[in-house]
């Protein structure tokens, strides 16, 4: 900052605090709501202070779920979500890094053509191609399976494109030096390119994991078996399922738990980020 005006600083802080408050408030409400007994919400007034039923609510959600409304206990759904998110993330990363490697380092016919084909799929997100994709998955008999949950979401033009851009910045001499040093293409990939891309991989891992974890429409469509419900779907079923009023205290407890894994992933990967970044700075 050039100006060191006291009021300016105050003003800047006010705006920042306001921004943080707006972002944090819903999270706060969710956490608070998850600690109240069932009756609180019927009155139509949101409590702003913690209630007394926190442990009880979380315990119910984790062990029983809401069996009457067809929602299984939360642990299973969390596990399903985790498997799906990990499969999508790892699948996306490995496929995109390999295709970027092929596009940047090999001269094969129609190279640019294939790159643009991949690039074009950027314009076709899941929602646009959902009907044909469903058809294909159904015909392959992959409904109600982890394969059906994750495979259609694995192809990623974004990640391919990002890795391509990164590989283009790696000096060509590095590849030449590796060739002189007797490293074949895959050895070069494993020994040099992969370690150099570690920060990119970490960044994409976070983004892709959250993308996978938050998938809503696709799991909703292709799973009818509660054994394959993901947590995001579970929340949806908790809200709409059953004849009674939604049990907001339980819904909120589930929401809070569902938000934990992405937060954990960010925290863990952040350390890798920082490590990678400081190493490049030296």
């Amino acid at each position, binding site marked *: 900052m050039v100006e060191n005006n006291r009021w300016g600083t105050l003003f800047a802080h006010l705006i920042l605090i306001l921004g943080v408050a707006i972002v944090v408030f819903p999270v706060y409400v969710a956490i608070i709501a998850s600690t109240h007994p069932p009756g609180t919400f019927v009155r139509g007034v949101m409590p702003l202070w913690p209630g007394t039923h926190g442990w009880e609510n979380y315990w119910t959600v984790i062990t029983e779920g809401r069996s009457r409304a067809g929602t299984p206990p939360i642990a299973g759904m969390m596990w399903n979500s985790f498997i799906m998110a990990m499969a999508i993330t790892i699948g996306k990363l490995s496929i995109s890094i390999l295709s970027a490697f092929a596009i940047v380092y090999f001269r094969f016919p129609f190279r640019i053509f294939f790159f643009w084909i991949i690039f074009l799929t950027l314009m076709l997100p899941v929602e646009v191609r959902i009907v044909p994709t469903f058809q294909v998955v159904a015909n392959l008999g992959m409904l109600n399976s982890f394969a059906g949950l994750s495979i259609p979401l694995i192809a990623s033009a974004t990640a391919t494109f990002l890795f391509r851009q990164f590989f283009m910045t790696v*000096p060509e*001499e*590095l590849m*030449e*030096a*590796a*060739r*002189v*040093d*007797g*490293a074949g293409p895959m*050895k070069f990939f494993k*020994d*040099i390119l992969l*370690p*150099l891309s570690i920060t990119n991989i970490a960044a994409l891992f976070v983004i892709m994991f959250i993308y996978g974890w938050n998938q809503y429409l696709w799991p909703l469509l292709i799973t009818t078996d509660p054994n394959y419900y993901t947590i995001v779907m579970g929340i949806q079923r908790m809200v709409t399922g059953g004849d009674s009023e939604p049990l907001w205290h339980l819904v909120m407890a589930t929401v809070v738990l569902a938000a934990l894994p992405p937060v954990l992933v960010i925290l863990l990967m952040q350390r890798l980020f920082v490590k990678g970044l400081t*190493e*490049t700075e*030296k």
Partner: protein
Amino acid sequence: MASITMDDLHKVYAGGVQAVTGVSLDIADGEMIVLVGPSGCGKSTLLRMVAGLETITSGTLKIGERVVNRLEPADRDIAMVFQNYALYPHMTVYNNLAYGLKNRRFPKAEIDRRVREAAEMLEIAPFLDRKPRQLSGGQRQRVAMGRALVREPAAFLFDEPLSNLDAKLRVQMRVEIRQLQKRLGTTSLYVTHDQLEALTMADRLVVLNGGVIEQVGTPMDVYRRPASVFVAGFIGSPAMNMIDMDYLRASDAGGAVDHLPKGTDLVGIRPDDLSVGEGGPEALRLKGEVVLVEPAGAESHIYVNLAGSHQPITVRIPGLPDLAEGARVPIHAPREALHPFDRETGRRTDGADPASAGARRARMQGA
């Protein structure tokens, strides 16, 4: 250790651009050959063809007795030092040196011995555990050298290895590389655009221009008897003066002019061969006006505009002359110092010298 034989090498790029046109060169075992020329002359391409990083369009390349045209770089038994060092940024210095040996499945003890020996030799032993980015430019340069050294290859290939260093370090590394190369006796091919580097380091110098060899010879041969106008202008600093024959004839330039061979229409004179003052009747005698005196420490460069043509001429003399700018001075050069050229062909008119015969052959094949 091995000799390198290039026979009529051609490189044509995909777009039809001719980068190297008919280069033939025999490099003896243990020789240090410097390829020198302006940017775009094909010197780097030629080196990369030897390394195997560029395909050879036609011609034969032998390292030792083996034709290596189609071999991968790793199988050619060469090691290369790159301009920007190309060190693996995520590996320690030790692993940078060891990588090539590991890929060749050397036993661990042997790798360790060679790495430590090379590190000792290059004085980088204290940095073996560091990453390249923690090293200075000069140290990185040494690591790049070390990576070539540990391989104990048949030939070293240097691609402008000193151009990223500052002037002082460059001189120091130049001396070290040369000493090291002499001690190891490894055949080396060294590419540079710096003519001083070329003159000081080479056993033999290869001057390239437009993808063809202009001249091959020992540095002093090339300096004393440049085979063409291009070589004359490229080697030597300040550059050789080129004076038109018609001007010399018209301006009563002394007896030296009459002794020049037939067909000479351009005369080259090195700035060091010119002196200020009236010369004898057999010398080349010129007159001109001093435009600028440039003191350069032990010597001075005097820029003189020739009387009548206003062509600028550089004169190099020891010490600092007592000359004012604007002064009219006579300058002269001994008869032996004149280099007669044919403007049309760009070649010398006083006969070929044995050293450049190969170059001429290459030139004709290229044409």
